[in-house]
């Protein structure tokens, strides 16, 4: 009997282990682009994910539209109430805008945003840790590229698009991911620092000097635009706690609660003309 027949299982296992050892080792040092092999797997299986999620959404929609009309009625009442307040807001803002800018200036500023937003649905979350990444149902065919800012349906920052960008699917790195960095500033005391994720539902604001002073729990943080990926002024989250860092006493240890949650990322907006610009 040939060796292959005798030791078939062991040889296959050895081959597979060596194969994995190779694909892990070629990624060292870390930070390199995703391999064609990894992208290929993503391209093959992401449409399956899209179909499965679509099926679940279909069942949920069927339930919501046909069987749970009471919830629709309740939502309708709530929407009417919200609509009332929104129209008041719009009137107020119109008054302010007419005072602040001429009509031409207004048109010019609005033109910059025209066609710059691509709405997308979330079709999947990270398979290992849901706080790391999500997958959306828009890709290069819709004008999406890597490094575009992504916001939730309430306008709060969710993250940025990263490779792999498929034809109709894209991966989004969440701001809660450990490797994510966002330059942010607090709205009241102007504390500026780099917000990084902790791969759970809170983030950390780093490099804020203890001598800076100010800053309080509940204070809102917005993007600064310094990182050249996220446009300035996007709402990010609020300061959850603020103490002097025990390890590096010259800095503050600030925990941030992001505004976005899994309940607000079913639909997201990709900003295709931000400073990241899909570079």
């Amino acid at each position, binding site marked *: 009997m040939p060796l292959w027949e005798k030791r078939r299982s062991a040889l296959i296992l050895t081959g597979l282990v060596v194969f994995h050892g190779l694909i*892990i080792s070629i990624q060292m040092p870390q930070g390199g682009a995703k391999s064609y092999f990894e992208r290929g797997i993503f391209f093959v*299986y992401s449409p399956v*994910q899209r179909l*499965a999620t679509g099926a679940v959404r279909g069942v949920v929609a069927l339930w919501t539209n046909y069987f749970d009309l009471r919830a629709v009625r309740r939502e309708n009442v709530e929407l009417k109430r919200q609509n009332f307040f929104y129209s008041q807001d719009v009137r107020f803002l119109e008054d302010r805008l007419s005072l602040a800018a001429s009509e031409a200036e207004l048109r010019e500023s609005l033109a910059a945003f025209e066609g710059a937003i691509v709405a997308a649905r979330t079709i999947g979350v990270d*398979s290992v*840790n*849901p706080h790391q990444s999500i997958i959306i149902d828009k890709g290069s065919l819709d004008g999406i590229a890597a490094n575009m800012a992504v916001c939730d349906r309430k306008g709060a920052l969710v993250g940025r698009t990263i490779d792999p960008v498929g034809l109709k699917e894209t991966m989004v790195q969440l701001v809660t991911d450990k490797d994510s960095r966002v330059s942010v500033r607090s709205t009241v005391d102007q504390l500026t620092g780099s917000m990084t994720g902790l791969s759970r539902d809170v983030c950390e604001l780093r490099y804020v000097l203890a001598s800076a002073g100010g800053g309080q729990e509940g204070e809102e943080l917005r993007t600064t635009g310094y990182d050249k990926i996220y446009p300035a002024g996007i709402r990010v989250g609020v300061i959850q706690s603020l103490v002097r860092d025990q390890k590096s006493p010259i800095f503050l240890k600030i925990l941030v609660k992001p505004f976005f949650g899994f309940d607000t990322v079913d639909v997201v907006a990709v900003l295709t003309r931000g400073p990241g610009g899909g570079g």
Partner: protein
Amino acid sequence: MRETVLKDVLQAFLGTLVAVVVYSIAGAGAPALLVVFNAFSVVVLYFSIRRGEVFGAVLGTMCGLVQDAFSLGVFGVAGLTKTLLGFWTGFVSRRIDVVPFTRNALFMLVMSVLEMILWLLLTVLVRPRSINLQGGLVFLQPVVTALLGSLLFALERWTRARRARGA
């Protein structure tokens, strides 16, 4: 011979599709559930016990690499752990009786715990910063995996018994 290998690969591909569908449905329903539920591990365990070590290793490779492709971790870590999980599950299950429910659940629990230990060790070795135990919730994953895997077998046995009674 070649036909068998091709058939195995094709069936492993179909098994992976099943895992992707289950993972997607779980993610669409409750994203936080994915911390304690790993659809890829359940599929690898289930089919490895049914089909043996070679099929288990091939399916483990496919499922693991797909899991890596849908995550930001190092590509290949889950691939390697699931390859070993599939192989050893298939290998051991051919040598001991894992048919009774409790023994089946215990066997799957042991294999899942070993997989988790290996995954943690590899991640610590390759990319220590990326480990997050989600406040210990991640350690529930082997328990959930073992429970679901053995329930699948129990369901299969129950269906077969019903069909036999009907025939």
